[in-house]
């Protein structure tokens, strides 16, 4: 057991992380994904407008969190793998995309530190959300991730209801992101929201001043 008396300053070895807040929610007919836009390296914000919602396919998106490099690479690899099988069938299942993500996360779990939430719509099961933290695969009605998600655990537990409409789900996602960005120093910027249903994916960006206001002590 040894103790370091003078540890080297953190920012020298700090990797670039998307200390972040991501959330995905199913509604009747599709899913809504949301993320903040801050990428930090230690205390410095290196990108304040990064879109962490990455398309894996037409109607399947994933939300990135953890190490920026790891998460982006996983998303690109899975995007490529899904493109390869695109010629065989029109719409890959969300479950397939999530399984591909999970396979990479699990196989390289010692080297990688990224948590992706995969969400989308397919003809077989409609809107689905899968969490793939550290190599597990779990289908859930909604999922939250990233450093900012700790602060909204209570909020989403209390406010989520099954069978919300598309509008209510979008409001729920924006509210959750706003609350997390208000409390987590590693989350902030703007809110990106993607809504996926049978007609396709619709991307939206909610700027800082358009975000809802909550009581601030």
């Amino acid at each position, binding site marked *: 057991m040894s103790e370091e008396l003078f540890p080297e300053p953190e920012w020298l070895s700090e990797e670039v992380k998307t200390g972040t807040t991501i959330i995905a929610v199913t509604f009747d007919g599709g899913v809504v994904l949301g993320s903040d836009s801050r990428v930090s390296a230690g205390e410095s914000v290196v990108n304040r407008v990064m879109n962490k919602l990455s398309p894996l396919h037409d109607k399947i998106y994933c939300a990135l969190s953890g190490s920026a490099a790891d998460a982006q690479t996983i998303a690109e690899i899975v995007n490529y793998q899904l493109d390869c099988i695109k010629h065989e069938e029109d719409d890959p299942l969300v479950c397939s995309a999530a399984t591909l993500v999970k396979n990479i996360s699990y196989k390289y779990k010692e080297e990688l530190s990224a948590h992706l939430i995969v969400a989308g719509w397919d003809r077989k099961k409609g809107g689905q959300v899968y969490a793939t933290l550290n190599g597990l695969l779990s289908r859930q009605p909604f999922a939250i991730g990233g450093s900012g998600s700790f602060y909204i655990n*209570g909020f989403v537990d209390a406010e989520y209801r099954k069978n919300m409409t598309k509008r209510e789900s979008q409001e729920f996602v924006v509210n959750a992101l706003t609350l997390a960005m208000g409390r987590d120093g590693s989350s902030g910027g703007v809110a990106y929201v993607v809504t996926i249903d049978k007609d396709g994916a619709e991307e939206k960006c909610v700027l800082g001043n358009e975000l809802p206001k909550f009581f*601030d002590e």
Partner: protein
Amino acid sequence: MFISQNFEMDSFSQNPEFTIHSFFTFLDTTIMAVEFEGGVVIGADSRTTTGAYIANRVTDKLTPIHERIFCCRSGSAADTQAIADAVTYQLGFHSIELDEAPLVQTAASLFREMCYRYREELMAGIIVAGWDPRRGGQVYTVPVGGMMTRQPVSVGGSGSSYIYGYVDSNYRAGMSKEECLKFTAEALTLAMERDGSSGGVVRLAVISEQGVERQVILGNQLPKFSTV
């Protein structure tokens, strides 16, 4: 809450303070206090842990300091008990000298004085709440490190991280006593469901001009938040 004594330096770990083997008794906890017109509502869970063992599953973390001043304790059980005892003594003495009820701010200042002076040795996060005739219901938070600030609503302890979003979105100024009780019970329940260090029963107390009313909400009577 985590401590960094007796840690092992893991060369792969960038955050040595999170690789711990500690067997001190902790009130890793969720505590909360809310002001309303005419008094305050305070609440806490009831779990005290020593490592992974729950040393006491029915702890009372709402400690009376004076007739209408309470403190909610989080952090090290030993430290907070010792501080609370010392402040109770000092405040009692001060109150006799003054020959009137002490101010909540005085109690909070005494806590702050001790927590700041001995900040290197102590691990204590305390919320001081009560009622006095001059300023009515007040909540003062004295987190680890020894700062003091007055807030209309304050949460503390390890479980508090999970309910910041809930408290931010659901608190409104001017709630009634019943609304505050419901708000506190629900927030504590949500935190207890997510935080492994918080659990057991919910203890609540209402402090007002009339005195102190205490209540306990047992595990099976807690509000239900099911997402299945």
